């Protein structure tokens, strides 16, 4: 038997496979990882601190920059927190618009994951395909609110812009196009021998572990926990749509892949129903010009593409929050990484990290 020596290896912070600025200090013995220590905080901008000095409307653009792959859901959580304490009734059209953009954003986010994940484990072309389709969603958002990534679209009491003419037809066209493309993706990847070898039975954890670590979203469902806030704690108008929640069995990387692909399909279903039932009316509720949130505290939660996105808001009745805390799903999901990497082959590091689907802007807030 060959004698091996332990070696310290530094991954990141600047490394393409970390999807941001994330550092990982690993100890390797031969090709086996014996210990992994994540180091985060490189992108910390103090969003929560800044929010204490901003009015509620001013906070919304800052949330765009947390999970920048899914800014719509981030917009939603902060206005939802304030609306919960203010007990604002939203116009239907605003609720529908919110659901449509949030689900489109979920698709865009999962497409980025799909593309970059396969790039991580060595497949080039899915990246190009996924970004081609994602571009259509970004164009839709561009038409709707003038921005491709940082939308600043939602306001307390509704949304900023009503749909432009013909926009809903473009969404319909996108849905049918995306459905076809999704099949193409799966044909291309799901049966691929190399892909299966690199994902099946890798990075496995149990349902109990997932719950213990506070994982959420696909990371939780892939382990077999049937839990989706859109269905189980309905917010906005999600209770009006029919959709299934894909759940995995083994908690390995392959289950995460199938869950995310199926989620795209289900999101398309939700968008389709929302477009069909799209109501007339205003897109903003009548709210005071200066928003003051009544005294109190509330924790609200929603299903973002990465998991349970929450917001804990403490208000003292002023136009600025007293304390605003974001429950950031990437931050929780990343915690299980040292446990997953221990004893793992070093070649699987990137595959496991990518499978969690983190956005460092969100981890570091």
């Amino acid at each position, binding site marked *: 038997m060959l004698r091996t020596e332990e070696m310290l290896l530094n991954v990141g912070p600047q490394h393409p496979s970390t999807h941001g600025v994330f550092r990982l200090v690993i100890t390797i013995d031969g090709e086996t990882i014996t210990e992994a220590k994540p180091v985060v905080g490189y992108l910390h901008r103090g969003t929560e601190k800044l929010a204490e000095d901003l009015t509620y409307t001013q906070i919304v653009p800052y949330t765009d920059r947390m999970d920048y792959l899914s800014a719509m859901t981030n917009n939603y959580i902060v206005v939802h927190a304030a609306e919960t304490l203010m*007990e604002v009734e939203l116009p239907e059209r605003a609720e529908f618009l919110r659901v449509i953009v949030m689900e489109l954003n979920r698709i865009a986010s999962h497409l980025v994951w799909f593309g970059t994940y396969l790039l991580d484990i060595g497949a080039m072309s899915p990246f190009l395909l996924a970004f081609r389709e994602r571009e259509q969603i970004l164009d839709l958002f561009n038409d709707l609110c003038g921005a491709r990534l940082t939308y600043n679209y939602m306001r307390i009491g509704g949304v900023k812009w009503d749909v432009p003419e013909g926009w809903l037809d473009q969404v319909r066209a996108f849905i049918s196009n995306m459905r076809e493309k999704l099949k193409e993706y799966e044909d291309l990847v799901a049966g691929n021998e190399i892909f299966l070898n690199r994902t099946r039975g890798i990075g496995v954890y149990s349902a109990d572990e997932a*719950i213990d670590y*506070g994982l959420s979203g696909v990371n939780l469902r892939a382990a077999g926990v049937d839990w989706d806030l859109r269905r189980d704690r309905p917010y906005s108008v999600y209770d009006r749509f029919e959709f299934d929640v894909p759940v995995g069995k083994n908690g390995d990387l392959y289950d995460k892949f199938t869950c995310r692909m199926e989620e795209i399909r289900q999101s398309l279903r939700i968008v389709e129903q929302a477009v069909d039932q799209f109501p007339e009316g205003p897109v903003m509720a009548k709210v005071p010009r200066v928003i003051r949130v*009544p005294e109190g505290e509330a*924790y609200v939660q929603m299903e973002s593409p990465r998991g349970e996105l929450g917001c804990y808001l403490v208000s003292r009745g002023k136009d600025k929050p007293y304390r605003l805390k974001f*429950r950031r799903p990437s931050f929780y999901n*990343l915690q299980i990484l040292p446990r997953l990497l221990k004893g793992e082959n070093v070649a699987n590091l990137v595959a496991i990290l990518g499978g969690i689907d983190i956005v460092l802007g969100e981890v570091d807030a």
Partner: protein
Amino acid sequence: MTEKDREKEKQHETHPGGEPAGKTESHKGGNDRFLRDNQPDEQKGAVQSQGKGETDSDTVDSSDVKQPADSAAKKAAAAAKAKAAAAAKAKAAGAAKGGSIPGRASAKKKKEPPEPSPKQPVLDRWVRIIRGALGEEAVEDAMINRPNGHLPTLFISKDRWLEAARLLKEHEELAFDYLQNLAGVDYEEHMEVVFHLFSMRHRHAVGVRVKTERENPEIPSVTCVWAGADWNEREVYDLLGIRFTGHPDLRRILMPDDWVGHPLRKDYEPFDEGV
């Protein structure tokens, strides 16, 4: 603004005879911000349009006008405005005397409708379980957070928090196995760590608040109960300076290791070596 409102309320309570009875009612209703959302939307709209182009305080004051919706509305509005101005003067005088009241509790009471919350029996049952196992003093207080979807909220003594956390997770009836959220708040007179727990088995949620003093804040770590608490406790320590005793690796997580101070504390002063 809350201070002002409280002052206003207090004034109405102490001198109700100072104004015509009917008017006092409408005035009160308009001033109570918590009642404002119960008004029908059209009325709110009217308020808003009247408030346009005026200063903030005027916007609030003009809400006095929303009750008289008849033809005499304009007259009444002018009268109410004059009255509001007078009230504001009196209020300012009162404030100058330093007559501020710690109105948190009274404001809460006002807001709550009289009928008991549907979650009240559940909360009572949970409090009984915890008190039964850990003693009377383990649960300092309990309440229903109404605007937050009637979330049962427990105030747990920090000395018993670790045992209480174990009980919350392991008790058959409670089974809070999922840590949803962990946040620290600096309330200036004390610090608080807030836990939002969820039970995947029973599908119920609870909010737990643990108070600690502001000087040298410290509460027991619960990483051994919920593994997910690890980084969150580090974050709270990093940003608020609350120490979690028994945490395996309590270091800064978001700020640089050599940072001075804890930014989310209300008395935080940025430290700059160059100055």
